[in-house]
């Protein structure tokens, strides 16, 4: 199996252009409206915690919007081509099936990365605006800077999570319907927050087989909770770049495994 960067880039560019045509980036408007609207409205309800809340909301909104794009666009990447029968035209071109899958993945990741980059600029701008509404003596008391560069650590790990979710969605879409793929991807995302609980359950069970199974499953399912440092960075708690790099590395390894499985299934699929 050999990979040609040009073929992958071609498919990726096509996916990105299609997402722009499908008005996926409209979510940026929703993000901006949500953030600006909330920052304007919550002033009376937070007892001075506006900045903390806008930080939390911004990171959560980036995560949720991206998650929805990753799942709902991800599951349609292959299904749409099959439905429109354009996959036949694509695959008679000199594009290998695994290049097609990788290109689709790279294209959606490009869309998500650009999406998050624009959101990040808007996020910092709104934070700056909210901070200006406070008197100087209040701002001096804040222990965490408003335009904290450490927020980028959470954002990098949010993008890493998208990398994992997109790979999972793409994997399911190679052999399942879009609806089922979306449901399975979302279920795996939720399950990915309960790995530690599964191990705890394994520890208290009396059956060694169940315990072993719980431990095994907890390490096989993706662990999304380990990639979540949103609250930590908002409170200015230490999160090292080494940890962030470790998280990105974990996603790279896991997503590679899932994409390999997706490529394997897709390459064996009979389209006749």
């Amino acid at each position, binding site marked *: 199996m050999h990979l040609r960067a040009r073929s992958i880039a071609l498919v990726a560019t096509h996916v990105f252009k299609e997402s722009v045509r499908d008005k996926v980036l409209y979510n940026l408007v929703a993000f901006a409206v949500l953030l600006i609207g909330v920052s304007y409205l919550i002033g009376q309800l937070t*007892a*001075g*915690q506006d900045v903390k809340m806008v930080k*939390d909301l911004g990171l959560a909104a980036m995560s949720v919007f991206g998650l929805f794009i990753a799942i709902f666009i991800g599951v349609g990447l292959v299904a749409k081509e099959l439905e429109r029968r354009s996959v036949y035209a694509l695959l008679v071109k000199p594009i290998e099936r695994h290049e097609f899958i990788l290109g689709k993945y790279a294209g959606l990741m490009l869309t998500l990365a650009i999406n998050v980059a624009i959101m990040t600029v808007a996020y910092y701008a709104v934070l700056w605006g909210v901070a200006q509404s406070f008197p100087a003596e209040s701002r001096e*008391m804040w222990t965490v800077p408003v335009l904290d560069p450490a927020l980028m650590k959470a954002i990098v790990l949010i993008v890493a999570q998208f990398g994992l979710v997109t790979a999972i969605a793409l994997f399911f879409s190679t052999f399942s319907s879009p609806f089922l793929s979306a449901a399975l991807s979302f279920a795996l995302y939720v399950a990915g927050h309960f790995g530690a609980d599964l191990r705890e359950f394994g520890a208290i069970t009396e059956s060694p087989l169940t315990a072993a199974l719980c431990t095994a499953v907890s390490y096989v399912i993706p662990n*999304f909770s380990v990639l979540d440092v*949103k*609250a930590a960075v908002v*409170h200015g708690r230490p999160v090292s770049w080494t940890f962030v790099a470790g998280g990105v590395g974990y996603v790279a390894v896991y997503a590679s495994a899932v994409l390999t499985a997706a490529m394997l299934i897709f390459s064996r699929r009979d389209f006749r």
Partner: protein
Amino acid sequence: MPGARILPLVVIAVLLAAGGLLQARLEARRPVDLLETGELYMRSAKVLDRAALSYDALVADVYWMRAIQHYGGQRRSEKTEKRYDLLYPLLDLTTALDPYFSAVYYFGSVFLAEPMPGGAGRPDLAVTLLVRALQFQPDSWRLAQQVGFVHYWYQRDFGEAARWFDRAAAMPGAPPWLTALAATMLAEGGDLEASRRLWQQMMETAESDWMRETAQFRLMQIEAYVAINTLERIVMAFAEAHNRPAANWGELVREGRLRGVPLDPTGTPFVLEAWGNVTVSPQSRLYPLPDRPSPSGS
């Protein structure tokens, strides 16, 4: 035709307005639901934490806003009997979801400890909340000082307050005056100077207007106490000279003991009671004053 373009917009506007009206009527006729009777759907912090997935900080923000709405709603309500039943559960859920949300501990402890009707009148729960915060931030001298403050100001437990001030003083970054405060607390109980210093410090480190205004208000009450102490000495001197207490401020002014009717820090005249006691007027924003700290050191 412009009319053809406007017509659908008008139809949409009319339908939306009708929908709003219908909704208002339905809400008016709906049976009182759980939320309105002051119940919490979810009381288990553990379940809530799991259900929030990786959005626990955001859910904590929502619960914090609910806590403020509950507190503010009760405080501002015109009901004579205030009910802050949900305050502690809401604060408990907020801090369980986001244990490093420091503002919740500082504000929450004041909300809980303030006596009725201004707060829940539960300094014990305020201490519970703060002690839990110290499990997550064991080196926070401000949290330890806040525990001492609740013991001192709201519970009048000077021994326990001194113990916490001492503990706070030993923490990294603690200001040196905390050691002196602990000693004063043990030796003399709560004096006005100690109160003034604590509220002053709270005002200077306040992250929000509400906290700053609360501290300013308490400082004004302390100023009122200082003035009352001085006025009572003058009233006593008059009583000793005349073998009877002064009937009103006018008598003291006429004798040159006062320049005019004394005013509290809000500009409202102090009240001279029949037996020579001085207090703030019920019309004053400072009324009622909290339990009087010992005048020593003032």
